[in-house]
Each structure stands twice: as C-alpha cells, then as structure tokens.
C-alpha cells in the first residue's frame, strides 16, 4: 500500500515511454496514470486516516537493513497534495498540448517526477531519500528544458548546476552519516543513542543535511535556482514545479528534524528561524519589482518558503500545523497561479505584464478565478491562504517570536501589493494595442478554465474548513519521534 504512490507512476512512466511518439495514446495514458496516482494517494490517505501510520519494508527485509516506507499523516497528506496538484495541471497540459511535448516524453517525465516526489515523502531511509531527490531532480531538469527556448536552456543550466552541487552535499552527508552512525534509517537513528564523543560530528552532518534541504526548499541565501528556473519552462511544467518541488525540501526539514536532527544538531531550529525572515523579505521584495507575471510568482515562492520554514522552526503542534497547512495551501494556490499565468499567456501571447491587459473585460470567468486565487495567496479570508497565514502568525505570536510574526505580516502586505500589480496590469488595464487577443476554441477554453476552477474550489474549501485538509494538517502536526520510531521499527505500544 505505502509503495503504490511510487510504483504506480513509475510503472506508468515505463509504459508511457514505451508508447513512444503517439500523442493520442500519450494523452490517454497520462490521464489514466494521473487517475491511478490519485487513487493510490487517496487510498493511502484514507488508510492512514483510519488506521494510523502505515509502514512497510520493501522486500520484507526488516528495517533498518532493508528500505522501509512509512506513511504517517504528514506523508500521506503531502502525497495527496501532490496528486491534487498534479491532476488539474495534467488537464491544463492537455489544453496546451500540441504534440511537441508528447513526442519528447513529457507525460512519462511527469510520472517519474511524481514517483520521485512520493518516494521522498514516504521513505524512511536517508540514502533512499537521496535517490528520490535525484529522481525528482533529473525529471525536473528534463521537464524544465523541454522545448529548448533560449531562456529555458540558460535558466535550466543554472538550475542544474546548483542542484548538482546540492546533490553532492547530500551524498556526502549521507555517506558521513553512515560512517559515523552505521545506519541510514531515520527511525533507527532516532532510536539509538549517539556516542557522546561523536555527537559533534553527527551534529555537523545534520547541518550538512540542513544545507542541502535548504537548497531544495529555496531558502535564503541559497534560493538562486528558483527565480532563475521557474519563469522559463512550459506553462504546465512551471505549475507542477511550483506546487511540489520546494515542498520536498521543507518536508525533509520537518521530518528529519522532528525525528532526529533538530535535537542532534542543536542549531537546526535557530538556523531555520534566523533564515526564515530574510527568506520571506528578500523573496517578496524581489517579487514587488518584477514586471513579468511568472517572475513575480517565482519570487513569491521564495518568500512563502520562508513562512513554511519559520513555522517548522517555531515547531510544536501549532508550528507544525502551520507548516503543513501552509504547504498544502501554497501547493494548491501557487500551482494554480502558474496555471493562470499560462492561461494569460495563451490568451494574450506574453508573460510580460506590460504587453497584457483587459482580461477583466474580455474574460470574466478567468478574471474571477484569478482573483480568488490571488487573494488566497495574499492570505485573505475565506481562502486557504487565510487559514495558513492565521496558523503561521498565530504560532509565531504564541511561541513568542514577535519579530517573525512581524515579518510574516509585512510579507503579507507586499504579497498583496504584487498580486494587485498583476491584477491591475493584466486584468484592469485596457489591453495594449500590440496585444492580439487569441480566441481558443470552446473546448480548449473549457480545458483552460477547468483546472483553475478546481484549484479555486480547493482553495476555498480549505479556507472554509470543509474537507480533509485541516484535520489532516492537524494530525500531521503530531510529529512525535517515539510514534514514528514505533511505526517504522515495530515494537510495543507504550
């Protein structure tokens, strides 16, 4: 059960690869694959909700010797989030598909990436985590550069170079960890005493892990790859990345920190707290000065990682709840906004705000959906952004981190400002004369709107407290080392 979210997309990846350059078959296969993935994710989520954490060992080799998977509430929630993001994006990709990406393996790559992301969420083994990170990364490399535009290639080059660096750090850290502790299983680490003489070294290795997770999550000062890469790829790719990629890094911080590293390093939490504030501010200040729709969104992603990381650093039930809720919110809404940017590109032919305009008059439904999502990103009620911001600011205030709460609030204001900038320019401003409004066929229009509507509905449902998101986030926030160790390694109930 726990491995299905990895195996199913991987198998579909192989099938889609074998299907070759047959666009129709590829599209059909992709829809089926997303359906299966969604089913696997929902199944796992329900199982975990009903019966508690699910652990399984690959090949039945006992942990820590084999590789164990463990789906607790947190992992299951994030897998479900991934599926919930991926499915509408897949529809959006169908709307834009013209056969070119299909021939280059777009659909297979998406499946492999989903497998990688799910693996990263589910595994309990730190080297296996490295492998899933790599699977995610290489798929993202290829997806990013599909189409081969100049900006894509150059942005992709930076993305690849920086992420390879982080992979080397991760690999070294995993090797050093094995060298110092003799194990790779997170739960095993959390349950065995550390030789006091080696404690400093284990702590040091922990900080190395933190640095590599920080690069994945796009934390200050190492977020460069994100604004370089996100504004360049094909629209559905950007949407998918925005929804899931950074979450993997934040998840790794949350998971490994709560089970082992936060305590083993001592500086884990202070570092997260200290870095979260510049991440928020530098990110959002980057966003307010951009004039390209996707660049604004990309810089926002950085600032919102700051929120999540701050919440992870604040910790405790309230902090973790905020972190998970923020991940869910951001996954849905940021993906949706990248989809919206893609729709704007499809209709207006550009991502530059100066070249767009008049959507409020010409496309009422699109405008309304965008507005809901934009306001959600800015944290206005009754959307998911409000719930997430509420949880985060409240955790910060009640945890005694007034300055972080202040940074969150200030970031919220700038976020709103930049979202309104998009609104004013692309929607309210009269269309510039150079803009040629394209009018896609009704079927395509429907496919363009459908994912946005789905995302907006999810954002509203989360914000209204309807549906599984909040209870799931709340359960996910019960990050207890003992419970995790017990779930993975087995052992008696206390």
């Amino acid at each position, binding site marked *: 059960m726990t491995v299905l979210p990895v195996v199913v997309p991987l198998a579909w990846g192989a099938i889609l690869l074998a299907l070759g350059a047959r666009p129709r078959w590829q599209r059909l296969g992709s829809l089926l694959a997303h359906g299966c993935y969604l089913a696997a994710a929902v199944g796992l989520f329900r199982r975990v909700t009903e019966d508690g954490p699910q652990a399984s060992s690959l090949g039945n080799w006992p942990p820590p010797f084999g590789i164990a998977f463990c789906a607790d509430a947190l992992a299951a929630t994030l897998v479900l989030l991934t599926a919930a993001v991926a499915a509408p994006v897949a529809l959006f990709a169908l709307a834009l598909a013209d056969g070119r990406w299909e021939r280059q393996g777009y659909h297979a790559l998406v499946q492999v990436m989903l497998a990688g992301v799910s693996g990263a969420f589910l595994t309990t083994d730190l080297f296996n985590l490295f492998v899933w990170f790599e699977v995610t990364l290489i798929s993202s490399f290829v997806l990013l550069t599909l189409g081969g535009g*100049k900006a894509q290639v150059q942005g*992709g*080059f930076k993305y*690849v170079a920086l992420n390879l660096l982080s992979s080397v750090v991760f690999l070294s850290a*995993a*090797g050093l960890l094995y060298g*110092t502790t003799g194990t790779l299983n997170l739960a095993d680490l959390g349950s065995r005493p550390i030789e006091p003489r080696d404690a400093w070294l284990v702590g040091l290795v922990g900080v190395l892990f933190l640095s590599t997770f920080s690069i994945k999550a796009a934390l200050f000062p190492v977020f460069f790859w994100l604004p370089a890469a996100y504004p360049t790829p094909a629209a559905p790719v950007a949407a998918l990345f925005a929804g899931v990629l950074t979450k993997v890094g934040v998840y790794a911080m949350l998971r490994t920190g709560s089970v082992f590293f936060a305590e083993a390093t001592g500086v884990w939490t202070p570092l997260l707290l200290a870095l979260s504030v510049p991440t928020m501010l530098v990110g959002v200040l980057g966003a307010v000065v951009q004039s390209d729709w996707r660049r604004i969104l990309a810089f926002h992603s950085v600032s919102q990682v700051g929120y999540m990381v701050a919440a992870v650093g604040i910790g405790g039930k309230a902090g973790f709840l905020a972190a998970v809720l923020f991940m869910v919110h951001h996954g849905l809404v940021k993906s949706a906004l990248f989809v919206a940017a893609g729709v704007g590109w499809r209709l207006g032919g550009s991502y530059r705000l100066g070249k767009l305009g008049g959507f409020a008059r010409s496309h009422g439904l699109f405008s309304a959906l965008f507005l809901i999502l934009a306001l959600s990103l800015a944290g206005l009620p009754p959307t998911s952004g409000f719930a997430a911001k509420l949880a985060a600011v409240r955790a910060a205030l009640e945890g005694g981190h007034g300055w972080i709460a202040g940074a969150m609030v200030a970031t919220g204001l700038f976020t709103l400002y930049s979202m309104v900038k998009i609104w004013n320019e692309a929607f309210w401003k009269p269309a510039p004369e150079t803009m040629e409004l394209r009018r896609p066929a009704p079927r395509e229009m429907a496919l363009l709107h459908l994912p946005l509507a789905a995302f907006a509905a999810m954002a509203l449902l989360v914000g209204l407290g309807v549906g599984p998101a909040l209870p799931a986030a709340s359960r996910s926030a019960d990050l207890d080392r003992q419970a995790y160790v017990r779930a993975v390694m087995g052992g008696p109930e206390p």
Partner: protein
Amino acid sequence: MTIEALLAVTVGVLFGAGVYLLLRRTVVRLLIGLALVGNAANLLIFVAASLRRGVPPIASVGETAPPASAADPLAQALILTAIVISFGVLGFALALTDKTVQSAGSTDLDDLVEEDSS
C-alpha cells in the same frame, strides 16, 4: 602517515580542485568541476565507512558469509548507486551545456546573464 589521513587529504584536494573549477568562466570547466566533486563525494563515503585492505565482501565457496575483515559492502553499494546516478546526470548536463553554448553563442558563463530578475 596513515592511509586514513592520506585519503582524507585526497578527498580534500578533489573537493578543492572541483570547487575551483566550478567557479571558472568556461561552461565545460564547470562540468568538470561537478564531476570532480562527485568523485570526491564517492571517495568520502568510501573513506568514512572504514577502510579494510584487500578483502572484498564476497562469501567464498563453503563459507556462509564474507570474512569479518571484509570491506563494508553497504558503502560500496551506495557508492555504486551514486556513481551511476552522477553519470546519468552528467550526461544530461553535457547535452544541456552543448545547447547552452549554442544558444548563448559563447562558452563564457558570465555571458549567461539572461537577467533572472527583471
């Protein structure tokens, strides 16, 4: 000098040379640098997992397990995985480099300043 110290220094030299190459202006140097630090990380794992001279972790016929003095098999498996992964990624990075050079018309990294923030 112990072999541990010697190999630790080797790891350091590989990392240092790799980082230096990473920061050069030509794109290919950057890749060579990445390949070097990748090799360095593999050696680091090897060194970290304890060094045993000469005895591979293979159970000879008639034995149920490799001798106790055998090298650490798990570290080897990890490194093997890592070698192959970095080979695959490097292959892709090479192709990307090729295209990048074509698109920029230059091998100079400092020419790749398609502004990230405007």
